[in-house]
Structure formats: structure tokens, C-alpha cells
């Protein structure tokens, strides 16, 4: 009843193309951001950071990246974890080769390196589409993981084959390494998430975003309008890989601290990110976050209910958790194939009218 479009008139095109055209939406998001920046850092503890918030924020960036490629540009990719690994190993190599380099620059440069690798693997997309492209990206996934396992240069010849993040700080506050505080890691990731989400949103609402969607919806018609298919697909691969690379770098340096590539960046992680955007909503920024939240939070919640709440043994709880999450995925796909984002959109449409039927 209080959520209303009425009276919220737009008098300029500038107002009409706002990210949140409704004033109430805008205020809602400001409150959410203020809470995330001003309240959460003071109440966060290690458990919340490592079990919930860090994986959520970092996987959101990966989901955002895959959504650019698959949701907006329509190019299915199963190489997400492979590209995250590129981000992680670039980050490691940069951290160890240039110890004095700021971690912010390291993380962003890792994204750029991943973008270049992504461009390379995006070239076949001009010729192959759909499932066939998915198989080609699958090749990228296995090749990249194999490469990082096989070539000792990537893990600086360490005996275990693992890479581990050295201690780095921003303005004296440690953000990586075992002594880093939960709130510092959290804020570092949060800032990156907000900035990257904002940039991605800008890309998707303008010329470039429309050319991505044009290629997705009808590539022949896109071409006669003047959209160069190769350039457009490659730009989607580049932007997508940049985001995924950043998320891989953060996953390694801030979240885990030490990584064994086959375990952390295996094919199951690629599928996890793909499920995130399918459940969250293809072609939606909000959907990337909703999907990441769903698949990160749901297992934690279920574990808490079953182990802590009901006192079941952990192994049974772990298996039931798989069953329930799998069941929920199927349930969502049947009830709302366009994902949580569409559910959210419909709820808002209903709310605008509520309590009146029309």
C-alpha cells in the first residue's frame, strides 16, 4: 500500500533511465548500503565472515561476471572456475613477484589478465553457439586447471603444489594472511562488489549492454543494425572474465588464503556459478546477487538447522543438505524459470497495486 508508483513522475530522460526509477526503491537500497557499510563491520565475527559474508560477496562477483556473458550476451560458459583460477594464480604471481604493489592494484590487474585469457577463449564463439560453445569452454576449464597443476612456475615450485597468500595491507590494515581481521576483509570485498556491480549495471543499460542483448536475442537482426558480432561477443567475454578473475583473486587471497587448484577451482565450481545465475535470474544484476545468496546461504542455514538445531549427525545432515538444495533448484526451475529476479519483479508489480486487484 505504501509502495507506489503514482505521483513519481519523470520529467527528463535522465530521470527515466535511473537504475532505480522509483524513489522508494532508491531509498531502500541506500539504507541497505548504509547498513552494509556502517553497521555490519562492527558486528561481524569470524564465523559470519568466513561462512556467509565473504563467500557471498566473492561469489556474487563471479555470478555477475557469468551473467554478463550468459545472461546478457547469451554465450553459455562452463569455464568459470578455470577463469577464477587464472585470477587466483595471477594474483599469487603478482603478489610474490612485486611485494610492494598494493593489493588493490594486484587484484584489478589479475582481473585484466583473466580478461585477456577470456578473450582468447572467446574467439571460437564467433563460429560455435549454444551447447557446442559450452563444450569449448569446458575445454578451457580442464586445460587451465591442468596447466596450473602441471607447470611449477605458476606455484613458484612449492613442494605441496599449493599457493598461499602473503600478508598484505591497505593503509596499515591487513586484508590478507592469517592475521587479517574479519571486518577488514569484509569491507575490502564489499567495496569491490559495490563498485563492480555499479560499473556492470552501467554497461548493461547503455549501448554495449543493448548490443549484448541483441546478439543474445537475434544475432542476424543485430548484425543488420550494425552490431559487429565478433567485437560484441569478445567484449562480453572480456568484461565477464575480468569480473570472474577479480572474484578468483579475492577467493584465493582474501577468503581462503591457500589454494590447491583442482580442489577449489574444479568443474563443480563452474556449475555452482551457473546454477547461481539460473536460480537468480539470467540477464539481471539483482539476480546475480540473489542467486549467490541463495546457494551460499541455503547450505549454511540447513546445516545450522539440522546439526545445531535438531542434533543430527553431521554426515547425514551433509547428505540431506544436498538433497534439499537439489530439490529446491528443481522446484525453482519449475515454478519460476526466470529465477528469483523475476519473482522479485512480480512481487513488486503486485505490491504496486496492493490491496487493489487492478
Amino acid at each position: 500500500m505504501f509502495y507506489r508508483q503514482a505521483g513519481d513522475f519523470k520529467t527528463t530522460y535522465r530521470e527515466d533511465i535511473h537504475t532505480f526509477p522509483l524513489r522508494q526503491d532508491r531509498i531502500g537500497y541506500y539504507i541497505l548500503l548504509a547498513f552494509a557499510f556502517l553497521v555490519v563491520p562492527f558486528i561481524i565475527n569470524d564465523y559470519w565472515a568466513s561462512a556467509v559474508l565473504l563467500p557471498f560477496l566473492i561469489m556474487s562477483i563471479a555470478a555477475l561476471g557469468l551473467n554478463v556473458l550468459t545472461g546478457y550476451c547469451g554465450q553459455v560458459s562452463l569455464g568459470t572456475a578455470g577463469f577464477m583460477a587464472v585470477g587466483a594464480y595471477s594474483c599469487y604471481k603478482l603478489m610474490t613477484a612485486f611485494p610492494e604493489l598494493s593489493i588493490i592494484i594486484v587484484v584489478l590487474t589479475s582481473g585484466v589478465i583473466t580478461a585477456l585469457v577470456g578473450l582468447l577463449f572467446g574467439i571460437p564463439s564467433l563460429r560455435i553457439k549454444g551447447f557446442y560453445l559450452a563444450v569449448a569452454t569446458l575445454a578451457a576449464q580442464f586445460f587451465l586447471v591442468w596447466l596450473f597443476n602441471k607447470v611449477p612456475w605458476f606455484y613458484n615450485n612449492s613442494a605441496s603444489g599449493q599457493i598461499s597468500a602473503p600478508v598484505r595491507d591497505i593503509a596499515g590494515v591487513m586484508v590478507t594472511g592469517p592475521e587479517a581481521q574479519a571486518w577488514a576483509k569484509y569491507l575490502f570485498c564489499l567495496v569491490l562488489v559495490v563498485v563492480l556491480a555499479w560499473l556492470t549495471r552501467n554497461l548493461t543499460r547503455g549501448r554495449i549492454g543493448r548490443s549484448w542483448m541483441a546478439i543474445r536475442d537475434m544475432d542476424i537482426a543485430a548484425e543488420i543494425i550494425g552490431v559487429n558480432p565478433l567485437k560484441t561477443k569478445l567484449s562480453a567475454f572480456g568484461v565477464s572474465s575480468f569480473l570472474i578473475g577479480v572474484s578468483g583473486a579475492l577467493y584465493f587471497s582474501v577468503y581462503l588464503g591457500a589454494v590447491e587448484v583442482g580442489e577449489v577451482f574444479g568443474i563443480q565450481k563452474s556449475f555452482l556459478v551457473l546454477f547461481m545465475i539460473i536460480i537468480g535470474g539470467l540477464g539481471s544484476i539483482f539476480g546475480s546477487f540473489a542467486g549467490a545468496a541463495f546457494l551460499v546461504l541455503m547450505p549454511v542455514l540447513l546445516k545450522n538447522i539440522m546439526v545445531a538445531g535438531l542434533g543430527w549427525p553431521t554426515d547425514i545432515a551433509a547428505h540431506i543438505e544436498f538433497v534439499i538444495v537439489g530439490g529446491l533448484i528443481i522446484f525453482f526451475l519449475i515454478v519460476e524459470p526466470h529465477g528469483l529476479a523475476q519473482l522479485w519483479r512480480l512481487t513488486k508489480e503486485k505490491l504496486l497495486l496492493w490491496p487493489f486487484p487492478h
Partner: protein
Amino acid sequence: MTTTQSNSAQVSKSVISGRASAAIQPGEELLRVENVSLAFGGVKALTDISFDIKKGEVRAIIGPNGAGKSSMLNVINGFYHPQEGEVWFCGKKRRSLKPHQIAHQGIARTFQNIALFKGMSTLDNIMTGRFTHMRTNLLMQAIWRGAAEREEIENRQVAEEIIDFLEIQAIRKTPVGRLPYGLQKRVELGRALAAQPDLLLLDEPMAGMNIEEKEDMSRFILDVNDEFGTTIALIEHDMGVVMDISDRVVVLDYGKKIGDGTPTEVRSNQAVVDAYLGVAHD
């Protein structure tokens, strides 16, 4: 176009001045196909076709099913590359170009089967049609404030002019997948118009429409031709419409040209009548 003429002129200045067609006066030849032959394996789709399109006219291409009309349009906008023959555009022989390069030269088209971007709104579809007029790069787009936003708003004004012109204001934000067929056709015309093309190719703009929709569409085509001076080449099966709105007609049959001239000339052409009605075997 009066209110935002200065704006749209400003936006498209670089593009228009870059186009060779600016130098061509109405009535002069804009496009010419010369001895074009196109074959798919053993099937000859087009055989030795030559005709021209003059700037500012409505040129119809007609013919029975399978005559090669759509193939002709596909040659003009670069989907097919003919084995023989040449396409001259704006007085220059055209190299073998890709469709997106031809779009930048100022040729737009609609499709026989609607080819809209189903996941996008009417407005976004038409804004996508402005693609060739937009210049900001990836970085500017990502930052948005400044150049990208300014460009978006300038082009939005042109898009809104087209929305007004086609009387589709009410469905501006509706996803096009939800629209009825007749409106989808209209949005597709809008998307092609948004490019402000010199030559507009319409592949059966009135197929499957009822009489009112056909009348609307004919009016829009004539208005586009009058107000914007856009040259139009259209394929259409409704002979009444073709004879009414076109200045000159070219007739194809089995990939060969069998007639060319004003509607009156074509109507009295014996080869054309035979092609449509069949030849009496006596």
C-alpha cells in the same frame, strides 16, 4: 521532427557527413545492381538481374513465391554475396562487405518473419536501432556519468520521435514478446527507422495483417518517404498496396527479371501477367 531536429542533426552529423549518399540529389541513382547472379549449389536463385533504385523513391520488388525477391534483399544488405555481378551504392562499386558494415553505410531493413529482440522492451529495441549513431567506448559506458549518459539522452530523443511518429507511446516499456503481431511489425519498422537510413529495405511489411493494419502501415511507409526523404525498397504480395504506394516496380520470376517500370507499365506487361496468372496453352 521539428522540436528535436537540431539535436538529432547534431547526433547524426558525423555519421551523415561520413555517408557518401549526402552528395546524391533526389531522383539520382542511389543503388544499382548490375548483372547479379546468385546460386546455391545447383539452384539458381538469381540470374543476371540489373535494376536501380533512385534516391527518394518507393521501389517495389514483386514476383510469385520463390522468385528470388528475398534473395535480392539479402544481396543488397550483405547476407549473400553473389557469384557474379556488382552492387553499386552511392556511385561507388561496393566491395564485399559484412552486413554490419553495410548498416554503417546507411542501409536498414526489416524481416519477413519478425526478428525483434524478444527479451527487450519496445524502447530498447528502438534504441538498439540507434547503434550506428553511438560512439562512446566501453570505459565511458562503464563510468556512465558524462559522455555515455549524454549520448544516451540525445539518442533517446531521436528514439522518442520515432515512437511518436509510429504512435506506439503506450507500449514503450512493454517487452516486445508480449505485443500482438501487428504492433511487433510496427516496432520492427521503428527499429529500422531509428538508424535514420538512406535506404530502407522492407521484406513483406504487410504480411499477415488485416485491412486496418495494412492501411496504417501504408501510411507510415508513405510518411517515412515524404517526411524523412528515405528511399524505400519493399517486397510485398498485396498487389493493391504495391500499385498504390510504389513509384516503380521491378518484377522477378524464377530468379529472372521479367518487368520493370511504373505500376501502370508493369500491369500491362504481358510477361508479368503470364507469370502471375499462368500462360494459356492453346
